[in-house]
C-alpha cells in the first residue's frame, strides 16, 4: 500500500468534487447564504406579525355588561381593549375574526359578589388566532387586577393584612453554570444536527465518486492503472471524509448564523454563554472522526455495489432514514443508553455527544463508541475493497 497513490486518488476526488457546482451549492450556498436568509426572513415576518397583533386594540363584546359596571369600566380603561356594542350574531363574528373575544357576565353577578360566592364568567376566544389569544391575555390581566382589588377590599373588611394570603414563600436558586445551561441547550439538538450534516455531506460525494464513476465509464481507467484496489478505496474514502466533515462544519456555522439572524428566535437565547472547554472539544472530535469515517466507508461501499447513481440513491435512502431515526432518539428526553447499546453506531455517538455537551465524561462510553465505530468503518472499507475485486459487481449492467 502506498500513501502516495492514496494521496493521488484523494486529491483527484477532491478537485473533481470541488469543481462540481452541486457541491458548491450544497456545501456553501445553502448553509451559509440560504439558511441565514431563510431564518432572517422567517424571524422578520414573525416579528412584524406579532408587533402588528400587539399594536392593534382587541375588539371584544360583552354580554351582560350592565350586571358588572365596575369590571366593564376596568376593561374600558385598558388602552388596547375596544368594547363593541353588537346586535347580531357574535359567534360568527368571532369565527370570522371581526372580533377577538366574547365575555359573558351572568345576571346574578352582583349578588354573588356581595354574598362573596364565586362568580363564573365565560370567555370565548379562538386559540388558533394570534389576535384572539392576545385579547384573551389582555382580558385575563384586567380580570386578575380587578380580582386583586376585590380581594384587598374583603381583607380590609376582615382587618387582615395582604400577607395573610401568602403564608409560604418558596425562593428558588438555579445553581447551573452558564456553561452547563449552554451545554444542556446544545445537547438537545446538536448531536442530531451533527449526525445529519455528516451523512448528508458524505452522501453526494460518496455516490458520485463510486456509482457515478461506473455510470460515466471512468472506473475501468483506474482499475487498469498500477494503483491497487485498496488504495483506490482508501483515497476515495478519505476524500468523502474531508467533504463530509467540511460540510458539517459549514452546516453548523450556517445554522448558527441562521439562528442568530432569525430575530425573534435570537431574543430567546440572549445571555447564553458559549463556553465549552478545550478538553470537551478534543473529546467531541475523538468521537466525531470515527463517525465521519464510518459514514464515509459505508456510503462508499454502497456506492461501489450499486450499478449507477440512481440505484445507489435508492440503497442509501433507507440508511439515511435509519440514521435520522437513531439521531431522533438522542433528542428524546429521558432516554439513557445502557453499556451494550454504545456498540450501536450513530446512536452511540449521538449519546456521547450529548453527555459531553452536558459536561459528563464517561470514559467507558467514549472508548466503546470510538472502538465500535472504527471497527465497523474498517469492516465497511474491507467490504468496499472486496467489492472492487468482484468482476460481477464492477461490470454488471
Amino acid at each position, binding site marked *: 500500500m502506498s500513501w502516495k*497513490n492514496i494521496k*493521488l*486518488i484523494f486529491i*483527484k476526488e477532491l*478537485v*473533481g468534487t470541488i*469543481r*462540481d457546482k452541486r457541491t458548491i451549492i450544497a456545501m456553501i450556498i445553502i448553509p451559509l447564504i440560504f439558511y441565514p436568509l431563510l431564518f432572517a426572513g422567517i424571524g422578520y415576518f414573525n416579528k412584524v406579525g406579532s408587533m402588528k397583533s400587539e399594536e392593534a386594540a382587541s375588539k371584544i363584546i360583552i354580554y351582560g355588561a350592565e350586571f358588572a359596571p365596575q369590571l366593564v369600566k376596568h376593561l374600558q380603561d385598558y388602552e388596547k381593549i375596544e368594547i363593541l356594542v353588537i346586535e347580531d350574531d357574535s359567534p360568527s363574528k368571532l369565527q370570522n375574526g371581526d372580533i377577538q373575544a366574547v365575555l359573558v357576565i351572568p345576571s346574578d353577578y352582583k349578588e354573588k359578589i356581595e354574598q362573596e360566592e364565586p362568580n363564573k364568567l365565560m370567555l370565548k376566544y379562538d386559540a388558533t388566532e394570534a389576535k384572539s389569544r392576545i385579547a384573551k391575555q389582555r382580558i385575563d390581566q384586567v380580570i386578575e387586577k380587578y380580582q386583586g382589588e376585590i380581594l384587598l377590599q374583603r381583607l380590609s373588611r376582615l382587618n387582615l393584612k395582604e400577607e395573610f394570603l401568602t403564608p409560604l414563600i418558596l425562593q428558588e436558586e438555579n445553581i447551573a453554570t452558564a456553561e452547563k445551561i449552554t451545554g444542556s441547550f446544545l445537547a438537545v439538538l446538536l448531536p442530531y444536527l451533527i449526525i445529519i450534516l455528516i451523512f448528508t455531506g458524505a452522501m453526494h460525494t460518496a455516490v458520485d465518486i463510486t456509482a457515478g464513476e461506473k455510470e*460515466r*465509464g*471512468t*472506473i*475501468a*481507467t*483506474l*482499475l*487498469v*492503472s*498500477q*494503483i*491497487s484496489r485498496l488504495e483506490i478505496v482508501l483515497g476515495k474514502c478519505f476524500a468523502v471524509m474531508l467533504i463530509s466533515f467540511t460540510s458539517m462544519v459549514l452546516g453548523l456555522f450556517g445554522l448558527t448564523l441562521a439562528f442568530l439572524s432569525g430575530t425573534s428566535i435570537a431574543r430567546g437565547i440572549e445571555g447564553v454563554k458559549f463556553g465549552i472547554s478545550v478538553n470537551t472539544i478534543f473529546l467531541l472530535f475523538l468521537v466525531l472522526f470515527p463517525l465521519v469515517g464510518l459514514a464515509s466507508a459505508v456510503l462508499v461501499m454502497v456506492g461501489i455495489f450499486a450499478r449507477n447513481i440512481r440505484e445507489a440513491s435508492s440503497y442509501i435512502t433507507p440508511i439515511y432514514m435509519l440514521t435520522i431515526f437513531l439521531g431522533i432518539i438522542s433528542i428524546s428526553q429521558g432516554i439513557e443508553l445502557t453499556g451494550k447499546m454504545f456498540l450501536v453506531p450513530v446512536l452511540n455517538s449521538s449519546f456521547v455527544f450529548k453527555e459531553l455537551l452536558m459536561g459528563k465524561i464517561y470514559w467507558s462510553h467514549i472508548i466503546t463508541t470510538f472502538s465500535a465505530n472504527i471497527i465497523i468503518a474498517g469492516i465497511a472499507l474491507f467490504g468496499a475493497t472486496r467489492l472492487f475485486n468482484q*468482476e*460481477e459487481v*464492477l*461490470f454488471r449492467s
Partner: protein
Amino acid sequence: MIQVEGLTKIFHDKKRGKIVAVNNLQFNCQKGQVFGLLGPNGAGKTTTLRILATMILPTKGEIMVNGLDIVKHAAKVRRQIGFLSSETGLYDRFTPRETILFFGRINGMADKIIEKRMAEIFQNLDMKDFQDVRVNKLSTGMKQKLSIARSIIHNPPVLILDEPTVGLDIITAKTVIEYVKSFRDQGKCIIYSTHIMREAEKLCDKIAIIHQGNLIAQGTLEELKKNSLFDDLEEIFFELINQGENQE
C-alpha cells in the same frame, strides 16, 4: 509479446445459468504487429480484452504479456499495457493536461518525465490548442485523442484498443488509424478489436474472427482469403460466421 493459450471465461448468471463467454482461445501477437479481433456484438471480444487488461480473471488458460503471467503478475502486466475502450472514460471536470498528469502519476512516473512525454504526445496528436480546456467542453474527436494520449503516457510496449473508432466521424477515425499505424511502426504490440472490416483490412497484420466465444479463423488477410471462396474480408467474415452457425 502476447501469448494466449486455451483462454476460457465462464460467467454464472442467476437466470441464464452458465455462460461461456470465451472458449479455448489461442493466439499470439508480436512486437510491431497489429492483431485484429473481429466479431459481431456479444462474440467475446470485450471479455477477451478485459482479461488481457487484467480487469477480470480468466476461468482457464494461460496468458503471457511480455513474458509475464497476467494472473500471477497483474500489477507488473499493467505497467506493460495501455488500454483504451468505451469503458475507459475521461473525467469531465479535468483538463487534458490534468488528466495526463494524473494518469502519469498513478502509473508511477516522475512529473518531469510526464511533462516531457506529454509535450511530445500533445504535439503529435495535435492537442495543444485544447490542453487546458475541461473535458466536458471537448468534442468526441478531441476526447478520443485524449483517451489515446492517456493510454500511451507511460509508453507501454503493448496497446489494447477496444473499438477505438466507434462513434467517431470518418476524419477523426482516419486520424486514429494513422496513430495506430505509427504506434506499430514504433514497435508496439497492438491488439485491436473492431467490427469495421475496412479498418481491419487496412490496419491488421493478423486477424482473428471470434463468434459466440469461439475462435473460428485466424491468419493474415492473405491467408484468410486463400482459405475462402471470397476476396473481400466482409464476405469472408459472413462465410465463416455462417459456417460456424451451421456446425452448431
